[in-house]
């Protein structure tokens, strides 16, 4: 039986006819006083299939707009609805700027697309974009299939969160297809990867010491302990190690599937091969109620460990190289909610070459 959809339009602003959106937005500005200036530097589009997220998404847009003036479009699409229908709302998010004498305002247009109207998504999105400004599309949840070539070819930055996907392996393969298909100009922005950024910085810093970086040639094993449901995150970290250190997946296509392995055991799941054909084993331990996330790297007698206790503002870094270094340090761990992660992503221009390379390293290990 179809799940009932609870849709609450309160907080979405003024309901308007779709054909009159531009006119109604114009009226909105005419009625405002001179201290308000409409500004837009990007088109920021959020697509969701979850009606309960609309309020939170509107709050996110409001926060984003304070830092990145934008034309925001929020789309709730419900293709399983029996009858086709399309509705729209408009509102504005204004923020004080400079010394407070002026307000910069961003517009938000919200659409609800039911039934067959959901297929009109590309048309609706493109006809309401601010001309000549980049399009950042945050697609919440699983990507649709088949991929709509027209839609993706217009997207400048596709934002998604691989940690939230219901079928991450399948979806990662789908994403890879985007990088070779018509959307190859599209920058892939995985919030899961952005969230791992502090881990990558901190892990790299463990090997800055002159006695430490030569050990990167001698890594025997990497153990990643993360909270339940974080396997893709762990895999992305491993993919990053593999791409930076030129490892290749051992027995690709033959190895036991990570996503069929049992959880919570920390046993070696698979192996990479170094350029000199040494085996590097890795293991991922997932556990529920994880109080501590950690990455432990062993290189012979030497150990490098980075750990983060739940809610802590710091990483703990431990380096042990016999007779050379035995140190413990703390490193900054910026705590980020979804909005912070999005802001970090939007503030970072350019592509994510390391992400693409890391993906290439782990995809052979991730069988559909």
């Amino acid at each position, binding site marked *: 039986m179809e799940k009932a959809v609870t849709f609450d339009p309160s907080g979405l602003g003024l309901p308007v006819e779709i054909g009159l959106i531009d006119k109604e937005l114009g009226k909105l500005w005419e009625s405002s006083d001179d201290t308000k200036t409409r500004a837009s530097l990007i088109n920021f589009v959020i697509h969701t299939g979850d009606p309960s997220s609309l309020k939170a998404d509107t709050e996110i847009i409001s926060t984003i707009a304070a830092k990145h003036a934008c034309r925001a479009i929020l789309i709730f699409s419900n293709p399983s609805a029996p009858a086709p229908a399309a509705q729209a709302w408009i509102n504005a998010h204004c923020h004080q700027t*400079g010394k407070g004498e002026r307000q*910069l305002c961003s517009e938000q247009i919200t659409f609800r697309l039911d039934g067959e109207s959901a297929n009109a998504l590309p048309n609706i999105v493109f006809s309401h974009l601010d001309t000549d400004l980049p399009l950042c599309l945050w697609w919440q949840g699983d990507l649709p299939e088949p991929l709509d070539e027209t839609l993706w070819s217009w997207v400048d930055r596709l934002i998604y969160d691989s940690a939230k996907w219901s079928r991450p392996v399948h979806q990662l393969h789908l994403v890879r297809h985007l990088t070779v298909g018509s959307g190859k100009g599209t920058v892939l922005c995985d919030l899961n990867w952005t969230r791992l950024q502090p881990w*990558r910085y901190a892990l790299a810093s463990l090997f800055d010491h002159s006695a430490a970086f030569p050990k*990167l040639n001698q890594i025997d094993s990497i153990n990643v302990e993360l909270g339940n449901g974080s396997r893709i995150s762990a895999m992305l970290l491993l993919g990053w190690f593999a791409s930076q250190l030129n490892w290749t997946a051992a027995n690709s296509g033959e190895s036991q599937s990570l996503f069929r392995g049992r959880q919570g055991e920390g046993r070696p799941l698979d192996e990479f091969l170094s350029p000199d054909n040494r085996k590097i084993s890795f293991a991922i331990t997932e556990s529920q109620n994880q109080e501590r996330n950690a990455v432990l790297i062993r290189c012979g007698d030497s150990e490098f460990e980075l750990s983060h206790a739940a809610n802590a503002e710091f990483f703990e870094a431990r380096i042990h190289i016999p007779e050379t270094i035995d140190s413990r340090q703390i490193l900054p761990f910026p705590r980020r909610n979804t909005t912070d992660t999005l802001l970090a992503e939007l503030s970072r221009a350019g592509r994510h070459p390391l992400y693409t390379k890391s993906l290439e390293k782990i995809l052979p290990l991730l069988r559909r």
Partner: protein
Amino acid sequence: MPTEPFQSNPLRDGLNLRSIPDPCSLIIFGASGDLTHRKLVPALYNLAADGALPQAISVVGFARRDKTSEVFRKELGEAVRKFSRQAVNDELWENFSNSITYHRSEFDNPEGYVSLARHLEELDAARGTRGNRLFYLAVAPDQFEVILENLRKSGLNTAAPGSWARVIVEKPFGTDLPSARRLNDLVESAFDESQTYRIDHYLGKETAQNIMVMRFANAIFEAMWNSRYIDHVQITASEPLGVEGRAGYYDKSGALRDMVQNHLLQLLCLTAMEPPAGLDADSIRDEKVKVLRSLRPLAGDEVFRHVVRAQYGAGAVNGKRVAAYRDELNVNPESNTETFVALEVNVDNWRWAGVPFFIRVGKRLPKGGTEIAVQFKSVPPVLFRATGETVDDNVLVIRIQPDEGISLRMCAKMPGSSLRIEPVKMDFHYGTSFGKATPEAYERLLLDAMSGDATLFARRDEVEEAWKFIDLIHEAWRTRSNDLAIYSAGSWGPSEADELIKRHEATWRRL
């Protein structure tokens, strides 16, 4: 097949949009001074908090006062809390401050440098700083000689194979051409040019760096960036402050040496230079030097025609009465030092023939701000003449500080059935367009020096060419003093400055 050993940390590759500098020791001479407390250490903390520094870093304060490393760290902790651009996290400071030590010595004591070398070797072993040394001379220029001489004698100026040694020199780079040459020779006796980083913090400002991007990454501007379309350029640096405890230095220096020789001529160079062959430090600096060499020299009577100097008298700034310059503490009551200078400068090359650059700098002006305003030529007075409407010229303003950004003034028709033309402004603000805080200039410059990127640092020939131009003006000033005008504190300078620009049928911009 055995794997090649790594020469650096491969996990750092591609991690940042810019590379993390090599691990190194930063040795600050003059560690007890204001610059260290207000700028350098807060900048280092912010870099550490942003994850932009390598973990393997040591900061060594070298100064004469007797204190322990612990006391030094405590003092710096207080300064960082006061001057850091971001809120200080205690644990993070604690962690970063572990990299800071204090080394007490007189600057002229050779033993102090021998023990410094030992200390640095210990730090290399303990912290993995790999023998890389960055010496920061945050001291008065009269201390340079003894410090550089001792660095050379102790061998600290040369790095071990595979490591590097660099020196950062703070302005002023001399007080005239001979002293700048002496200073440069002195630095060169210990460090060659490729190891030398002369800091001009204006070049570390985001908007100054953006001048090149704006000019050379936007076809619409570069095509019009010449005497055919540009009427004149105004470069202004104004501040409401007086000498504020710098009287000893300022009274000997004056606005021309303090601001024009370095900061404002650098901004002029970035505005006027040709596209460089590449983005490497020397390609850019080659082009800047060409601009300096193209400056039409101002000498003899030409100086009095093209340069106005003035000093502030008593007045009011921001509603408060302020004293005249000559009544300020530690200022000679008969001082003829200029606190305001306005110049008309010509760049004699093909691009800029006939386009004057008006430079204006002053203290105790009504408002603080630094900007470059490019004033475009008027449209032919044909089409709209009959309407009686005034058509304002286009102005492109690059705001260096505060409220960094760019604005373009153009004309638009006012809505209505009649033809009325009004100026409108397209405005770009760094603060609102990019959702992240602008780093302090010292953060960028320290990071660049650690990374060996000298693009934003002045090269020897740049400094000396700038002095050549400035010295001629000073020579003329020495011949008479009756040209020094007095302006009221809180005004926009003397009327003579207005006359200067009026000859070009222009007026100074109101900031």
